[in-house]
């Protein structure tokens, strides 16, 4: 029975996908959307069932569906593992997924390809579930690549726009760089332990009979995979571009779920990373730098979704910081709270964009508070959460990260704190520019300003509520999440005892956040500053505004040489190689042409050669010794 339910949990969104791809066009948009949503809701409900079951008996549920890949030294089956970690992920993936599906029914209603949108969205949920529930790395890899594919499809959803397609392609390829790392990591693990099954790897690793250098390499490779998927330095540039997709996509895939896959994977393989402290250090440093760099870019962005995108990168950086410091639960905690408020923020921004008929530039917004109160308030709550204001969810999770960082390395703590301050600043900058002061758009837009319909606001409200109370799952003191996840985490982490130091740190964080808010307030409310037009931005601001020219740098360093090489190969080397082959023919033909001159029709010459031949042969045979 459980097997069937688990299968249903997995396949329900897939059914939705099949329905929408084959029949979506024939049924009305409402039905298409409803079925898409329902299938995800089914998964959500089943997740709750399993979650309840797990809470009751505490035993993870693992089944093997069928034999899959077999290589020389091991055999993999297609198995499902529902343990604490995967169920936790399932809950918020399907939960938030359901909300976003619901939201999309209204948001995408005007799009002619809505059924496809839902199909892709369902497919995404399916793959995300696969990623989460697999009982071995290879099944995770299916989901891993699958979500990448859906991300590609959804970013390029408006396929008539080639820049959007470029963004989609970029996302896919960047992800694939990470995927290669993932693959190599898997190969090393498979070679070392002859298995890819989590439980078996875990027992093998803890037995401790592996070459630690190779193990480190494996961990590093897996981390590269995580970097690609979770948009860490140096592979983060695809995520801001991915905002080309419809806003629900950004909310679901590029904020709440897919990008956290890297964190999921690292958490999943925590026993491996625990044995490789060097790699952990690298993860922590990469996370911290990513958090800072992304936050700093976010400071000056004018596209509402870009700001949120950099914010996401930055927050993901913080999570990796936590992972690198071995605080897996903290990271997971932040993943969950982040999912709530970031989804809410994205959906809110979507609501704004929807209200403004596609306008995304904050310079052309302003004063929307009145027109869109629900949107404003839900977004405000989420902003407070992300800024880390007590007692919103973000405060708790972010604070724990800072505390862990402080405990390990002060420098990392400082970096993370600065990133947090920046976060507070740019988020409020976003809020001020969007909702405060007067409207800066066209008259026509102003005329049409309105609150979004119910289907959009209900998910917003639910997510806002979660953003407020989400911190409850791991409040200092109860530490429910810590306890819940204990079975899947190899090493036990000491629970934080709330001491003076912790309170001081909390205070500092809170003060920092408030400083950021005040700074933003001063600049954008008091001074009424509106960001300048693109052309007028100069100096270091320009560097930041242009994202430190990282994209250009990549283009210059990789894309251009690759294309140049390709052109060189195509136009020079290929014909040259071809000519080498033809060369034999040309030489033979050339000799033939010369030979024709010898065959000049002169019988005297023929006889002459004849006699010479005789002389040569006889000399060779009878005189030469």
């Amino acid at each position, binding site marked *: 029975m459980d097997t069937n339910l688990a299968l249903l949990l997995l396949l329900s969104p897939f059914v939705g996908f099949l329905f929408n791809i084959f029949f979506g066009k024939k049924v009305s948009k409402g039905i298409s959307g409803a079925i898409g949503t329902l299938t995800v809701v089914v998964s959500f409900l089943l997740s709750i069932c399993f979650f309840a079951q797990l809470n009751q008996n505490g035993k993870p549920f693992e089944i093997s569906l069928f034999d899959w890949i077999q290589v020389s030294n091991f055999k993999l089956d297609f198995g499902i593992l529902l343990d604490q970690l995967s169920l936790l992920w399932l809950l918020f993936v399907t939960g938030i997924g359901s909300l976003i599906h619901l939201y999309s029914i209204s948001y995408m209603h005007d799009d002619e390809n809505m059924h496809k949108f839902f199909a892709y969205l369902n497919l995404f949920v399916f793959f995300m579930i696969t990623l989460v529930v697999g009982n071995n790395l290879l099944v995770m890899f299916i989901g891993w690549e699958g979500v990448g594919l859906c991300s590609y499809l959804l970013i390029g959803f408006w396929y008539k726009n080639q820049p959007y397609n470029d963004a989609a392609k970029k996302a896919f390829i960047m992800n694939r760089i990470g995927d290669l790392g993932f693959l190599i990591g898997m190969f090393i693990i498979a070679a070392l332990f002859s298995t890819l099954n989590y439980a078996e790897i875990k027992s093998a690793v803890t037995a401790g009979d592996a070459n630690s250098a190779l193990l480190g390499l494996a961990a590093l490779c897996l981390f590269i995979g995580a970097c690609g998927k979770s948009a860490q330095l140096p592979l983060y540039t695809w995520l801001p571009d991915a905002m080309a997709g419809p806003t629900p996509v950004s909310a679901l895939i590029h904020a709440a779920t897919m990008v956290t896959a890297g964190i999921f994977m690292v958490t999943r393989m925590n026993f491996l990373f625990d044995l490789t402290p060097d790699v952990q250090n690298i993860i922590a440093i990469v996370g911290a730098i990513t958090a800072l760099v992304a936050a700093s870019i976010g400071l000056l962005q004018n596209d509402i979704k870009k700001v949120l995108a950099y914010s996401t990168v930055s927050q993901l950086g913080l999570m990796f910081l936590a992972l690198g410091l071995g605080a897996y639960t903290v990271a997971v905690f932040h993943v969950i709270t982040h999912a709530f408020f970031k989804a809410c923020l994205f959906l809110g921004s979507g609501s704004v964009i929807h209200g403004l008929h596609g306008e995304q530039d904050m310079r052309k917004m302003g004063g929307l508070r009145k027109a869109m109160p629900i949107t404003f308030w839900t977004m405000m709550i989420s902003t407070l959460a992300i800024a880390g204001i007590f007692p919103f969810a973000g405060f708790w999770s972010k604070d724990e990260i800072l505390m862990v960082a402080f405990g390990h390395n002060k420098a990392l703590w400082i970096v993370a704190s600065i990133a947090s301050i920046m976060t507070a600043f740019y988020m409020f900058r976003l809020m001020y520019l969007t909702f405060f002061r007067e409207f800066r758009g066209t008259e026509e837009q102003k005329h049409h300003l309105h609150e979004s319909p119910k289907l959009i606001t209900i998910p917003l409200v639910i997510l806002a509520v979660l953003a407020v109370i989400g911190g409850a799952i791991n409040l200092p003191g109860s530490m429910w999440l810590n306890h819940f996840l204990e079975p899947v985490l190899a090493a036990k982490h000491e629970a934080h005892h709330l001491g003076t130091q912790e309170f001081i740190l909390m205070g500092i964080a809170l003060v920092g956040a408030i400083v950021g808010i005040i700074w933003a307030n001063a600049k954008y409310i008091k001074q009424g500053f509106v960001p300048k037009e693109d052309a007028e931005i100069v100096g270091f601001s320009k560097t930041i505004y242009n994202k430190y020219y990282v994209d250009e740098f990549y283009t210059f360093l990789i894309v251009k040489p690759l294309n140049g090489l390709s052109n060189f190969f195509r136009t020079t080397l290929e014909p040259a190689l071809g000519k080498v082959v033809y060369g034999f023919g040309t030489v033979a033909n050339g000799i033939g042409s010369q030979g024709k001159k010898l065959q000049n029709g002169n019988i005297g010459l023929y006889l002459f050669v004849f006699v010479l031949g005789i002389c040569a042969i*006889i000399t060779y045979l009878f005189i030469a010794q």
Partner: protein
Amino acid sequence: MSPVLITFYFLAAFTLATAFLTIYSKNPIHSAIYLVLCMVSIMGHYLLLNAQFVAIVQLIVYAGAIMVLMLFTIMLMNLNKEDEVHKPRITRLGAIVVFILMSIVLITIFINSKTIMGEYDSSGEDFQSIKVLGKVLLNEYMVPFEFASILLLVAMIGTVLLTKKEKDQK
């Protein structure tokens, strides 16, 4: 120096000289005449070797038939003039070089090889009288003898074929 040897050397010198003159003469008629002389001198060799029948046949066939045919052709074509253009110098030089080369090569080999001096077989049997030759030719060599007739027949048909005008053509 026995008289036989002197005769041989004389004949040999004569043969070579006439052969050379055959080639060297500019006038084809002269060439033909030298050739006849050459043939005759070879007949002398045959006689020296006591091959009487061969000698007679040599005279009849070569000097008689073949050379007459050649002369006839020369006359027919009116070639008895010294109008032949020489080959290019390089060709002639090449010809001379090849000639010398070939002679040297062949002679060197024969000199280098073990010479069979001394006593030769001399069974004393008659082996080259017309009678013996006739027996050999018409017993053992019956088949080639007949086959030679095919050869001549072919040559005959061929000559006719090559020179006969096609009736049906204009």
